[in-house]
């Protein structure tokens, strides 16, 4: 058995079980930091705990969950979450790929360009949100000023339900494209150069090389990027908080934002817990296949080639 095979053999198949005690610290951490809080949330979500109610908290089983699906605000928040999670994704992948291709070229002066490309990554989301809020506010010039130079009368971005969503998508694309680009770029650095040399000898153009070598080799990385972007997209909060606070008229309120408002603003703690746990469940269902694919793909590279 080669060392790499031993490493990737599932733990339940191994004969030597002496590794078990060494798992305890990690398991204890997961228990304290993840499992127990989750169980407490689950328990709270089955109560009517609400500080604005005249009734004391009662155990109500799944009533909160049943009520959720009759709550138009919750349904709308799911849709808006989907737009804000999946809307930016194709653009981030496309622009990230293009940036990575440019970064990967051996061109003069690219050193500092690479730095400029990833500048948005240095912005904390709050600052990013403030910056885009300023750019999208008509009184402060920004985007509508440049549109007006082109003879276009810009919309009142953050004051219109559709454009407010688009504004947040734009800000998110701007903010996280560099992450995608870096993931792609570092993956490209590991691609074997002989593939490119051989293809050049066969007369492949630059476009063909990217289409038939780079893109297929990037599949795994793209999967990782997509899963990461979806998981981070779920946590989209500071940008919304700063740019629109969920408005106007609730049109940019995502499910996690609704849970926040229900819990911290309205003090309906039981209901807020059921919102966030339902959201978590829906996401796990969506993400499960891609995570399984990812784990399935963790194999020594030589096994694939």
């Amino acid at each position: 058995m080669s060392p790499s095979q031993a490493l990737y053999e599932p733990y339940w198949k191994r004969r030597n079980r002496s590794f078990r005690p060494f798992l305890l610290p990690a398991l204890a951490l997961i228990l304290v930091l993840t499992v127990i809080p989750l169980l407490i949330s689950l328990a709270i979500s089955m109560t009517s705990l609400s500080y604005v109610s005249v009734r004391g908290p009662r155990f109500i089983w799944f009533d909160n969950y049943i009520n959720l699906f009759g709550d138009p605000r919750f349904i709308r928040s799911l849709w808006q979450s989907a737009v804000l999670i999946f809307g930016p994704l194709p653009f981030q992948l496309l622009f990230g790929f293009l940036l990575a291709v440019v970064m990967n070229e051996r061109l003069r002066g690219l050193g500092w360009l690479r730095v400029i490309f990833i500048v948005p990554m240095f912005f904390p989301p709050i600052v990013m949100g403030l910056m885009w809020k300023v750019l999208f506010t008509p009184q402060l010039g920004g985007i509508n000023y440049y549109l007006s130079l082109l003879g276009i009368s810009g919309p009142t971005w953050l004051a219109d339900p559709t454009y407010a969503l688009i504004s947040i998508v734009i800000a998110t694309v701007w903010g996280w494209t560099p992450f995608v680009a870096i993931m792609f770029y570092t993956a490209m650095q590991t691609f074997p150069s002989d593939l490119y040399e051989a293809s050049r000898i066969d007369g492949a153009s630059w476009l063909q090389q990217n289409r038939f070598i780079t893109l297929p080799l990037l599949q795994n990385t793209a999967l990782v990027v997509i899963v990461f972007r979806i998981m981070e997209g779920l946590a989209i909060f500071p940008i919304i908080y700063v740019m629109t606070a969920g408005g106007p008229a609730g049109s940019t309120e995502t499910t996690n934002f609704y849970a926040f408002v229900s819990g911290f603003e309205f003090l309906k703690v039981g209901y807020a817990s059921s919102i966030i746990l339902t959201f978590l469940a829906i996401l796990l269902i969506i993400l499960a296949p891609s995570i399984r694919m990812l784990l399935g793909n963790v194999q020594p590279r030589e096994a694939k080639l």
Partner: protein
Amino acid sequence: MTRIGSLIGATILATAGIAGTAQAQDFDLRQFEGTTLDLLYAEISFIPGLKELLPEFEELTGIHVNIETLSEAAARQKAQIESASGSGAFDIVGIQSGNLPLYVQNGWLKPVSDYFGNPAVSNPDQLDIDDFIPSTLQGMAVDGNQYCLPFFAATVMLYYQIDKFEQAGITEPPKTFEDLLDVAKRVHTPEVPAIALRGSPPSSAGNIWTFNLFLYGEGGRYFADYPNDLSVTVDSPEALSALETFVTLKRGYAPEGSVNFVFDDVVTAMQQGNVVMAIDGAPLAGRILDPEQSKVAGNLGFAVVPGGTAGPKPSFASHGLCISAASDTPDAAYLFLEWATSAETMVKISQNSSYLATPRNAVWENEAFIEKYNFDFGGGSFLAAYQQSLAVAPADYYPPIPVWGLISDRMGQAVQAAEIGQQTPAEALAAASRDISDILKTEGYRN
């Protein structure tokens, strides 16, 4: 106490200073030496001035006070969460009158009235409870218990640029909503829109603060007869007429995208002369007139807000300092509250900062106060307009119901939806009325 009486009282306090208070109180000021008190509130005027005076209090009593300030919404959320968890992280929290019922229902506060007349910590001359404007005390009391001591009397007024009015041939500020629409039509230009009004956030911290004055001005209400009959009445003809006026102003005569205007944006628009009129907090005049930043200083008129069939109903909130039930040093906290909300301290803060929203008659009548704040640029006296507004502002501007946060959010969403044209005013109000009924049922206020 009568006005004259309080005037005399204030004069004695001001002249005699600490010596005067020392005579009247017969307890040991330094009994809590070494104690630390933590206070949480929004960064509104009074608080910065109070911070500056803390060394004075520490010298007097040996009590150290930490003040943590956040934005209004963040401070409210944090105070609620800390209170609900009973952490005792804050001995003193600031609260707005609309938020008090929630605190009382959950037992998060120790009433300050528990200490009234307690010779161990209270000095009746310093407390001088009758000197507070009654509506400000009333907003901080429930069922005969005084929960907080007010430090801020918030109301709104109509601000306008005097020269813009003159150019349009308008001789006096609008008194009715009809007048207001008419004036807006006459002064509005795309470059300098007619009026700035709050649009966000959709709650009592945002558009509901302004919208309610239209609602009440037209004679509308939230409930048929609070607290006896909680039938929701926000879809009444009066409410519809109020929302139509509000939407007409915001869609036709306000800056672009002003559905996102929080109070800061309203103040800035007026301060920069980017609008002809604004309706917002009277205490903000200090900022609008700040000679360093303002382009309208010397050109600003002040008036009581217009009204409808029910007359003018300016927004009103009393802000108070309260003792957290989880505090382990409530006595020291009370000592601080009495000092912080005394006429003497308020006069000092009005001088060391732009604080003028005082709930104390003695301060309103203080000569230095009047000299500093009695702006008049030919459009009438600022202080007079402020006092007239306070006199007609309803003390129960927000219905005293613990679930008000949810109700005001739902109503705020409806106002925004109508403003951006997502729904007609009638549709928005009908939906809000249904949902508010549901909220009351879910939370057990009604069958």
